[in-house]
């Protein structure tokens, strides 16, 4: 279980948005994992099991509102490709294929982290599990104790909110032309 600690910590750091709280959450999760190791089913995904424990610790150590305070925004009108669409339309990209990880990181890397920190936990948790940890929707549903349809819905909304935040950032930075919604 210990080899998973760096991944678990990186995850907790983004989840809590705070170094000290991330350490506390990981420490408590490992203590529980150790004490309840007899419940771990051999042959199943150890990392997913640890994330499930981490999820419970996180819920118990935060104010309940942290994960539940946000009303689900309507999916209608949300765009999970908003940034791309705006960059192509307003960003003056002559060749939309002219993008590299380095270029994207230079333009948006810091803001991606900040936008993740601002994203409500309801969306941040499944988004990190899917996009960073590569867990399947079924595994995320098990980790979070929610139906698969809810996972899909939260992923869509989380990604759309992130897109909206990055698009707003791009507008403020002058990457996008101002004045167009």
């Amino acid at each position, binding site marked *: 279980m210990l080899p998973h600690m760096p991944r678990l910590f990186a995850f907790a750091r983004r989840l809590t948005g705070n170094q000290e709280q991330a350490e506390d959450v990981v420490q408590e999760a*490992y203590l529980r994992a150790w004490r309840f190791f007899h419940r771990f089913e051999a042959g199943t995904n150890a990392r997913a099991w640890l994330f499930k424990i981490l999820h419970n610790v996180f819920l118990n150590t935060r104010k309940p509102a942290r994960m539940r305070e946000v009303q689900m925004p309507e999916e209608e009108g949300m765009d999970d490709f908003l940034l791309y669409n705006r960059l192509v339309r307003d960003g003056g990209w002559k060749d939309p294929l002219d993008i590299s990880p380095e270029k994207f990181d230079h333009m948006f890397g810091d803001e991606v982290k900040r936008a993740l920190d601002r994203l409500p936990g309801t969306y941040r948790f499944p988004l990190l599990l899917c996009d960073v940890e590569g867990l399947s929707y079924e595994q995320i549903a098990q980790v979070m104790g929610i139906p698969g349809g809810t996972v899909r819905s939260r992923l869509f909304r989380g990604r759309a909110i992130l897109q909206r935040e990055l698009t707003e950032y791009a507008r403020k930075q002058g990457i996008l032309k101002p004045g167009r919604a």
Partner: protein
Amino acid sequence: MRRPKRHGDHAGKPDCRKVRDQVFHLLDGRLTPARRRAIRRHLEQCPRCFSRLEFTRIMRQVMRRRVLAERCPVALVRRIRAMISRDAGRPSGKR
């Protein structure tokens, strides 16, 4: 996947919308092999859909890199090891 050579050839075709809706499912590994092949065939012909996929893939890659760049403090590893050792030594300590 090959980068499409011409721009805009298939931008107006009706299946672009379907492909757009499947981009995340493709990246999330949720498509059947047949569906994946069909999407890939479209992507090889359609620069707009291809660049949308590439942009999304790159964004995810950067997010992953940034999140995983956080270093786990050595002190935390030591603390957890010590905590587990202490707990293992307790008469009531369970695994």
